């Protein structure tokens, strides 16, 4: 072993390991940090554990990057660290729509769309837990009444509805406002 390696070998190894560890840590921390800021923005704009129905996205009213002007959004920033959340919705016929549950790390834990849900009312209960059960994002079970578990106390439920212009928006705006969320009494949780 050369003199250089004897002197610096362990130090170089420490450099490589700490560089990899800090790189890995930063990348892992970013989604949670960004989601926390987004959650706060949404909760300040509406309020936590209730739905806010955003109008059509324009250059003048956008607050989140890369929102789609072809969709209308209803948001529900939720905090289930103490009580579960219930989301309810009556499907809108003839339109693409989806409800996505994002956890506090920006990961979609669950998605339900118009084709999966059918015509009946939708009920989704969201609880906080660390079980290993995976909430399938394209589950084909009884999706109109789903139970979703996420690993973080906070998250966001997001309704997207495809609209085809202003007239279409006016026609369906009242219907999409049937997207509601509320915290549940623990005794009524699934």
């Amino acid at each position, binding site marked *: 072993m050369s003199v250089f390696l004897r002197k610096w070998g362990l*130090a170089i190894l420490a450099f490589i390991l700490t*560089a990899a560890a800090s790189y*890995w840590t*930063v*990348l892992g921390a970013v989604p949670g940090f960004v989601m926390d800021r987004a959650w706060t923005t949404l909760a300040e704009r509406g309020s936590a554990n209730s739905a806010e129905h955003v109008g059509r996205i324009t250059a003048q009213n*956008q607050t989140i990057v*890369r929102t*789609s002007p072809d969709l209308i959004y209803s948001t529900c920033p939720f905090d289930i660290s103490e009580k579960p959340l219930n989301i309810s919705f009556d499907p809108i016929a003839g339109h*693409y729509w989806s409800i996505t549950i994002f956890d506090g790390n920006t990961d979609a834990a669950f998605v339900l769309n118009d084709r999966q849900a059918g015509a009946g009312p939708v009920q989704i209960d969201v609880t906080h837990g660390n079980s290993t059960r995976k909430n399938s994002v394209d589950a084909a079970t009884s999706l109109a009444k789903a139970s979703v578990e996420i690993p973080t106390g906070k998250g966001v439920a997001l309704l997207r509805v495809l609209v085809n212009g202003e007239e279409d928006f006016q026609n369906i705006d009242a219907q999409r406002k049937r997207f509601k969320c509320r915290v549940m009494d623990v005794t009524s949780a699934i």
Partner: protein
Amino acid sequence: MLWRIVILSILGIVAGLLIAVLQLRQDVSALEIENGPWNTAQGMGSADGSRFTRALVALRGIMALPDSEAIYYNASVDSDGNMLDGACTYEVRGGKIEARWWTLTLYNVEGYLIASEGDRYSYGSNNIAQEKQGDWQITVGPSADSDIATDPAASFQLTMRAYHPSQAFLENRAVTELPGIYRVECPK
């Protein structure tokens, strides 16, 4: 010996931090799967994505849908590899896209819509007649008759969203045929 380890450990932490910050300063065109002028990644919007993808998507396109619901592509260059320039006019030409519906949306480099007369932010399969879905073209540029409007003073990016992509599309996202972006004219 110990002081060498301590100093290089501190330098290592700083180096890792700097590399992460530099990587995350890139836009979504840094996503690892390339298809012509378009970039995408596996597992956007879900825990299945790589650590880098999840961090970049959180910063540049938070609350993306998972793959089964939508595939996202982003272009910041045209089909010849030149940066998309809002002063220039482009034709975007494509064929049938194997998805339930799709849209093309123009954003500035920060990821926000650009104000335009008539709110011409996007164009998609809903705007194209059924018989033309297999062979269509649209214009992107600063003129008032463009299908999607640009800001002549700024660069831009195009995002393509394909909802409910076919299984073949999902499995071949790096090679499936996507719309081409062709520069038609540019002011001298």
